[in-house]
Structure formats: structure tokens, C-alpha cells
């Protein structure tokens, strides 16, 4: 999975590309670390626009992120959710947990 992190003012945008599945576990965790620890960042936006595949372990990673973000008092948003990715998020009703655009 290719990743890209950009920090603009108080927002961190983490863009993911490719397959977001169990093999991305460590990478995703270490990606979000700096953003969560940063004092300036208040919102993490996970850009899923170029993710072609998302499975239940990815949902699990998002849940973990949500918990860590809550502890750090930061918001999490999921952006550019389309097609198959959107479908998985909808079936799991993750719209009730995250702001999804």
C-alpha cells in the first residue's frame, strides 16, 4: 500500500493507495503516530480515494485509530470514499462512527 502524509496547519491528510488489508497493519499504525502525537494537528483526514480494496481488518484498524484519536482529543474523517470502499463502509454502518465524505 502506498501512502502519503501531508500536514497543513491543524489538519493531517493521510492518503492511502492500493490494498488496505491486514498486511498494512504496521504501516498504517506508524503513519498515524506522528499525526496523533503532534500538538498542532486537531483533525486527521484519511483519504481513501485511491484505495482499491478494503476489508474487515482495515475496518478494525480504523476503529483502533478512532480510539487513539479520542484519547488524543483529535477528530478523524474519512474522505473520498467511493465504489467498493464506500460499500464496505456502508455495510458496516461506519457512517455512525466516522464522518464520511
Amino acid at each position, binding site marked *: 500500500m502506498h501512502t502519503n502524509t501531508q500536514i497543513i496547519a491543524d489538519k493531517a491528510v493521510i492518503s492511502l493507495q492500493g490494498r488496505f488489508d491486514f498486511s498494512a497493519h504496521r504501516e498504517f499504525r506508524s503513519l498515524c503516530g506522528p499525526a496523533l502525537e503532534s500538538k498542532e494537528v486537531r483533525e486527521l483526514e484519511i483519504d481513501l480515494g485511491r484505495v482499491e480494496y478494503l476489508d474487515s481488518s482495515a475496518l*478494525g484498524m480504523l*476503529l*483502533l485509530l478512532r480510539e487513539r484519536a479520542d484519547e488524543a482529543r483529535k477528530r478523524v474523517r474519512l474522505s473520498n470514499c467511493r465504489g467498493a470502499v464506500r460499500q464496505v463502509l456502508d*455495510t458496516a454502518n461506519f457512517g455512525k462512527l466516522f464522518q464520511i465524505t
Partner: protein
Amino acid sequence: MMLQAGPAPALTSMKVLLVDDSQETVLIATKFLRKMGHQPSVARSGAEGLRVFAAERPDLVLMDVVMPEMDGYEAAARIKAIGTDRWVPLVFLTAKTEDEAVARGIEVGGDDYLIKPISFVTLKAKLDAFARMLHMQRQLEQKSAELEVYYRASEDEQHVAGHLMNQLVRADSLRDPLLEHWIEPAHNLSGDLVAAARTPAGVLHVLLADGTGHGLAASLNVLPVVDPFYAMTARGHGVAAIAREINGKIKRWLPVERFVAATFIALDPRERMIEVWTGGNPPPLLLDRQGRSMHEFSNPHLPLGVLSQASFDMHTERLRYDQDCQLILCSDGAVEAENPDGTQFGRKGLADAMRDVPPEKRLDCLKLALNKHFAGRCAHDDISVAIVNCGQETAHQRREPDAWTGAADAVADVAAARLAADGEWSVRTCITARELRYLDTVPMLLGLLKQVRSARAHSAELSVILAELFNNALDHGLLKLDSSLKRGPEGMENFLEMRRRRLAQLRDASIEIGLESVTAGNRPMLRIWVKDTGAGFDYNEHPAVGPDAEARPHGRGITLVRRLCATVDYHGCGNVVCALYDLAQRPQAQDIPAPPRAALADCDA
């Protein structure tokens, strides 16, 4: 292994076997080799070379080509044929440089060649290159060995987990005649699970669960799901309460990133009611006899284990069916199954596979359609499908209350005898409006009764009796609902909606329930009484309740309770009902034919 800048690490000292019949070459080469820090050994002929190779297992072989009897090519071929797992580089020492000679060398298994006379620089360069390659190969071997160890350990764990899951999943109860199911794991162990059981009153509960993870990790999800499902179904709890309980366990026991998508079904074939709770799974399909969709269920909930108990939503969708139909449950593995082009099977694929297919063939058609869709590609998610046949069960198909004869009549005369409350045990409970809103009262009391030896065998009957008396007290006594509301196509939904509303508004009301063991004419009996704070009714005149009332289409009616109990009486203003149940009688729910009346009358009544 990480790629690094600069020359790769190398074997610093190799065991080098030199096979050459020329004394001069041997002297020079061994001197060079020692200077480079390697350990030379020598053979003077092809045959000796084979012997020494087998004995010493060198890291690298330098092979002269021109030798009497066995030449270098033949010796090389034979050395390579000895065949170990390890690659031993073989370098020919030759004066011949023609293409054919080189090609022949490679053909027989040689890896490189050096031109005689050997120069130190060239020899060192080649050996260094091979030393790097050997180092890499040794590292690979080591990793491979470590992997083998882990692999074996993992296989062992899978085996244990598989055993555990088999024991927990109780394959026998999945043989309910109303249920068909199919699970296709993506790996050895499926993270998907199907469970089924009947409540004491004969309602079929079906659960299709999809836990995060495959293989061994999947089995971790199973215990907190399966145990409450079976235990609570046996006590007669509703599926929403079971869902909530499982949610709590998963949330508490498992890490945050683990959750379980689930579909719960409660099918009451006598009331022809379907109740559905779905969280995280595709919602079930309801198909008519022709295989067309009759109703679209929604999927309103999050998977189990995500929300706290306080936020958990117990709302279920209820539906009455008036014709034979089928519920199709599946996990997302079926819907998201991808063909080689990456197209998903989809809900449309699901619906298409079963349209115009007779009910008994639908599961097979679905399997065929999915296999065709995959076109040889492997599934990367577990697939599970459960099909529940919703029809009308006849009395004899399912140990039904209607089939129970009134063997209790034989002891009806006992009612006239004086009842001696021998104070063995009694339970009295009073439940007020606030608790009535959420407490699962009947299962709670039934759970209690099951602990009592004399009552345990009669759980099915007692469950029906308790439920009828309690629900009457609540629905009619306190909430003043009329059963006639249940009639008609929307009737049940309207009734339940009104019930929900009135229950939410209930104030200053309570229901008292008493369970007492008493003895009447030497027979152990259970007295059940229920008292509500409602206005009561004229029980002598009421058509549904009076002694001549027939069982109504909705609900089993108080007539069934009369059949099961020795006596049923109303008191007060109709807000107190008291039933006496003979604990000595044979429980009707077992498949034992009821003893003939005469035999009963003969025993110590």
C-alpha cells in the same frame, strides 16, 4: 533481508576443493587460496575428487577440465548429481576457451570458468563474487528453516482451534429441519459461523456471524458469540437481548479492532413472525415461493463489539408472513466475491441466482452461481450462507403445545382437596413500570425454575404457562391492549408499535409473580400466580378466557394453559390469576407417549 549500499557481506573463509592432476597448478592454487584466507583441499583425479567431495563437503569446487580417465566435465556432472540441498559453485579451470567448451561446462552444471594459467587477481575476484552469493544463500536457508518451524507451530494451533470450534459450534443443532447452511472458508478455518437453536416455546433462533480475521484469529471470536447464543436461547430470551449480551462480551474481551458482523433471526412458525437484527452484514433477503423478493430488510446496526452497552441499539425489524417463504442470510464474502475481472457478485447476483428456482434447490443454485462467478479465482473472504424456511409448522412437527393432551385432567379433582403449602421453597417478585420496560422477565424466572430439580424437566410447559400469564397481565392488565388488533396484514406491526408506545409511557404500575412449591394429595405441585395493578376484567363473561373459550388464531390462549395445568382461576377483580401445575406428571414435551388415563388414576392421587 535488507538491501544495503556497498558490497554485500560474504563468506570470509571457504572450504575450497581443487581437483587437478597437475602438480604445478595444485601448488600455485593452494598457495593463492591460503593467502586469501580460504581452506584448500586437493584431489588429483576426477574419481578422487568425487570421494573427497562426499567426505568433506566443500563450499566451492575448482575443477580442471583435462584429466585422464575421468575428465572435468564428467566429474562435474557426477558431483552435481550427488544432489544436496545446498548449491556448491563449481568453477572449471581450463585452457580451452572455445564457445563449445564453455557451453559444455555450463551444461554439465558448472557455474563459471577460469583460464589457465591462473592469475591471483582473477581467482580472487571470482571467489569473492561466489562468496557473496554463498552468504546470501546461507541466509535464505536459515530463514527458510525458521519459517518451517513457525509453519509447523501454526499448523498445530490451527488444529487445536479447529477442534475447539467444532465443539463449540454444535453441529447437531444445525440440523433443524427449517435450516440449511453452507460455509466456505477462505483459509483452513472460517471466521464465519452459523448457529441455530430453539427456545423452549419452539421459536427458531438463527445466527450468522462474520468475525474479523481468518484462520486461528477467527476462532477467538467464536466463544463469546456462541455461548450466550445457546444459553440465552434455551432460557427463551429474545434475539435483541442476545445480541446485546454478545456485544458486551466482545467489547469487553477482545481488542478494539476486533468485531463481529452478525445477523440474528427469530422465526416463530406458529405465529408466522420473523424478527431480524442485522449489524454489519448484508441484510437478509426474503423470497417467496417463486424466488422473488418479498421484502427489503434494512441493515441499521453496527457490528457487535463496536459500541458500548449504553449505545447499543436493540431495535429489531418484525414481519408477519402469510405465505411460505425463505430467508436468505449471508456474510459479505458472498456479496463481495470477485471474479477474475474484479467484478463483485453483488446482491443482484444473489437474487438472480435464486429467482424462479424452487426453494429446495436454491442453495445448490447459489453455490453453482458463485463457483461460476469465481471462474477459478480464489475467494479472499469466507463465505457463509444460511437459508431459513418460513412456513407453518404443524403441531406434530415440533413438540407443539396443541399436541399435548390434558393428562393434567386426571388430577383436576385435586383442586378440591386442601392444599398444604409445605414451605419447601417460594419466590415472589414484584416488577414495576421502569423495569418492565427492559427486563426479560419470563426468561429470568424460567432460568430460576430450571435450577429447581422438580421443575427442570417441565421447562417447556412452564415457559409457555409463565409467558402466557405474564404477557396477559402486561398486555391486557396494564397496557390495556386488545388482541383483536393483531388481525389483518399490518395488525401485528400496529399491535407491537402501540405496545411499545404504551410501555414507554407506563407509570405507577407493577406486576407481582409468585412461584411456590406446594403439595396437593401427595403430589408435588407448582403454584404460579400473577397479579397486576390493572383494573381487571369480568373473567366469567370474557369469551377468550372463560372455560369454554377456544384457542384463538393469535397466541395459544389461556385454553392451552388450562390444558397444561390442573387448575386455573381468576381472583380479585380479574387482576389475579392463579395456576396449579402438577410436577409429578410426565413432561409432555418429550417424545414419550403419555401414559393412559387409567394408569394415572391408579397411582397415588
